[in-house]
């Protein structure tokens, strides 16, 4: 406790000595900033920015430099806006070994890569709470797949990708007892608790994920990670904290040691080892959910059994490198030579050299062993330290000119420094308490550079106040010059953690505009109005419905009875860009459907009362949208009302030609 207070006092002392008083926002924005973020009506942004939605469980997509919100992609949370997790087709996407879970905490974003460059095919994101990794298809901007990670708690060190998207890596924040030895005393942490690193294999063609094996690690908290690049291609580097292995009051107890570790693991060697050895198979269960664009439906499969290897058996594959004070970010520079760790309680930023790490391993320059793993001498792995970079360094990204940008939580600033000479070049305040930052392509072998966005944790007075709950603030910087220039300040959804951005040209031309109706393989697809029908099977009613501007077929249904379960399968017959139809039923215990052209979507409705129940199109589809509606009659159980359906009975029309005169 005393140490901690000393630390805070020292921090404050350094703060007063070395930090300028942050300027106010009006001072930091220069005259031509507006023109640099202005994207004229009808023009496109230069890059797509994929921003984690944090505790919203969703992924936000912004255009930069305008910072216009283009889309919120539902991933781990139900989304009433488009029926994600409410429609029968998408409910399986949120299935887990714990059953249906309508929420998660989405932290990190990893664009798929080929040869170290973002290729624009998929973006991977993690669910922190009930550990899952999702893959979003960037042709449809939809979540295509979610895989649950067994023996994982607090899936924070995730998802991180190798240079050719061979593997997604996911490490645990919480160590826990593993399956098969679950019911133990919490105080037996050091003996019984373990962390894991899951290797998720990505099929190079389909993108489909599988978990061939996990590595069981000492019970550290794994925080963040990056794959190597170029010469370090075969390696992953993880930051970890709580090497004290505390299980209570981590705020204090996990800050005892002067150094925690960066963990270097040779994933290539581990992959080979895993192919050659059997490992231990646990009985863990996990869900694997896949959405199919042809059936417009998801399936959820519960798998059992996961292969595990203990870290200690992976000789010459895993090394620990001491790293000051609870490192957070662990970032590899574009050349793959430098590994930057942001020790959030440290006064310097250590930069490790990959070639020195290799030499140290070769020359066995080890301190000792820790938890059965060799510890490389700090100096043997160190390239150098960035002195007095600021306070509370967290994450580092890189530009295309050999510079690094580190976020400083405590001193609320972005610090630009040169990787070679480790000298600070520029520092700019952010408003306030910066967490993650990102440079366009900043995680790749060849960053695009130009823009940096700071994602802050504290907003306070940045925008018009909205009661006690505020959105998070983000600030956009132009980093094309020697000095960084703040351009704009915009609110974001949820709480953004990491984000990535990619040139628009890599994504925009491959977009699906609508689904071809002839390719629709949905079990209940209705490909023409004449095929629409209503089928009773016991107390289950299936409505094979269509919609097109501006009506549903059928739009009058009678013969539904209390006690029935009605499945309304709506096929959108449109074959036209941006003409979805919505569908909602009064009293349905769900959200609406939003059905894309050529797609089939199902709303389950259990009538709870006798009467005539309306339904309607919720998306202003056309000039006659407000006419797009229908009725269902619900009769008592056992009623003699026949099951009938219709569209456009013209018998009630006004007499023909009566009013001509």
């Amino acid at each position, binding site marked *: 406790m005393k140490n901690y207070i000393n630390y805070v006092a020292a921090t404050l002392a350094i703060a007063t000595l070395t930090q300028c008083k942050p300027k106010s926002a009006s001072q930091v924005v220069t005259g031509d900033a507006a023109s640099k973020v202005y994207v004229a009506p009808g023009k496109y942004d*230069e890059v797509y920015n994929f921003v984690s939605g944090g505790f919203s469980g969703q992924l936000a997509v912004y255009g930069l430099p305008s910072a216009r919100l283009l889309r919120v992609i539902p991933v781990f949370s139900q989304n009433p806006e488009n029926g994600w997790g409410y429609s029968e087709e998408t409910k399986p996407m949120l299935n887990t070994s714990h059953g249906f879970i309508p929420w998660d905490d989405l932290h990190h974003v990893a664009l798929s890569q080929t040869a170290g460059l973002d290729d624009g095919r998929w973006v991977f994101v993690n669910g922190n709470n009930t550990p899952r990794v999702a893959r979003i298809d960037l042709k449809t901007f939809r979540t295509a797949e979610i895989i649950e990670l067994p023996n994982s708690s607090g899936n924070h060190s995730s998802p991180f990708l190798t240079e050719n998207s061979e593997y997604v890596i996911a490490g645990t924040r919480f160590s826990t007892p593993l399956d098969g030895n679950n019911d133990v005393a919490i105080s037996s942490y050091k003996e019984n608790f373990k962390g894991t690193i899951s290797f998720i294999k990505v099929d190079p063609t389909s993108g489909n994920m599988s978990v061939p094996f996990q590595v069981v690690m000492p019970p550290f908290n794994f925080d963040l990670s990056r794959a190597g690049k170029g010469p370090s291609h075969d390696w992953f580097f993880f930051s970890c904290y709580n090497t004290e292995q505390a299980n209570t009051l981590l705020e204090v107890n996990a800050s005892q040691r002067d150094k925690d570790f960066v963990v270097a693991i040779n994933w290539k060697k581990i992959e080979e080892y895993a192919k050659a050895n059997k490992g231990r198979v646990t009985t863990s269960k996990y869900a694997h959910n896949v959405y199919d664009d042809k059936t417009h439906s998801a399936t959820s499969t519960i798998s059992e059994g996961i292969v595990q290897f203990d870290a200690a058996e992976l000789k010459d594959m895993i090394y620990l490198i001491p790293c000051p004070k609870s490192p957070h970010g662990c970032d590899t520079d574009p050349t793959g030579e430098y590994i930057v760790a942001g020790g959030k309680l440290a006064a310097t930023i250590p930069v490790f050299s990959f070639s020195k790490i290799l030499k140290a391993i070769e020359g066995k320059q080890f301190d000792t062993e820790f938890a059965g793993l060799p510890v490389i001498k700090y100096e043997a792995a160190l390239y150098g330290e960035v002195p007095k970079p600021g306070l509370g360094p967290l994450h580092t990204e890189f530009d295309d000119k050999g510079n690094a940008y580190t976020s400083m939580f405590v001193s609320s600033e972005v610090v630009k420094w040169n990787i070679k000479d480790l000298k600070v070049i520029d520092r700019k305040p952010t408003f306030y308490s910066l967490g993650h930052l990102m440079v366009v392509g900043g995680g790749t072998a060849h960053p695009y550079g130009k823009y940096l966005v700071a994602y802050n944790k504290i907003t306070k007075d940045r925008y018009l106040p909205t009661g006690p709950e505020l959105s998070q603030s983000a600030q956009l910087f132009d980093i094309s010059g020697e000095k960084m220039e703040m351009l704009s300040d915009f609110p974001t959804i949820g709480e953004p953690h990491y984000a990535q951005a990619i040139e628009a040209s890599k994504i925009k031309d491959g977009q699906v505009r609508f689904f071809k109706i002839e390719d629709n393989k949905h079990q209940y697809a209705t490909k023409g109005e004449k095929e629409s029908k209503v089928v009773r099977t016991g107390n289950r009613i299936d409505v094979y419905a269509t919609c097109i501007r501006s009506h549903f077929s059928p739009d009058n249904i009678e013969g539904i009875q209390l006690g029935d379960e009605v499945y309304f399968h709506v096929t959108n017959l449109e074959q036209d860009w941006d003409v979805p139809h919505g569908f909602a039923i009064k009293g349905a215990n769900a959200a609406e459907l939003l059905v894309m052209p050529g797609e089939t979507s199902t709303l389950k409705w259990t009538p709870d009362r006798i009467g005539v129940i309306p339904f309607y199109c919720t998306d202003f589809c056309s*000039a*006659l949208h407000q006419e797009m509606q229908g009725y269902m009659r619900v009769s008592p159980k056992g009623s003699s009302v026949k099951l009938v359906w219709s569209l456009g009975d*013209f018998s009630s029309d006004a007499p023909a*030609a009566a009013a001509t005169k």
Partner: protein
Amino acid sequence: MKKNVFRLLLTGALATILFVACNSEGTKEGEQTATTEQTAAPVVAGQSGVVDDLSQKNVVGVAVSSPDHTTLVTAVKAAELVDALSNAGPFTVFAPTNAAFAKLPAGTVEGLLVPEKKEALQEILQYHVSVGVYKLENLKDGQQIDEVFGGKVTIGVKDGKYTVNGANILATVPASNGVIYVIDQVIFAPAKK
């Protein structure tokens, strides 16, 4: 009331939309970047300028690709109705063929294509457009359909043949935003009393 609203919508749209030949001057997506130059008086394409070769054609696209409707297309352009008819609709369009326009007294079409006659041309063309999809199988003899301008047309169904105000419906062409009935005469609203 509702119909008046649509008239307003259409008129309002027309007032603000500048004429752009269908697709010919539409901005190509690939050229849209944040750094495009400013021009003094930019010609702004409306919805007809959307580059979309994948979707089913809308009523304008169908007409443009029909060699029998070049006069109609010319008239629709001159009346600045291209953007409105590229809208979500849905529309029922009675589309006179070139031959139908040729039946009009000599000089009629040319006379309507001059800028001063734009409003008159719009009124004529809007008598050929209804908001809503009226499917052929649902049309009944004597049925009246209210047009965007000029009042109602009367449908005739006799011996399996369909007419509108006496003009023969020659063909039915579905479009993404409605349906087109090809007709062999230009139809006119009854003169106001």
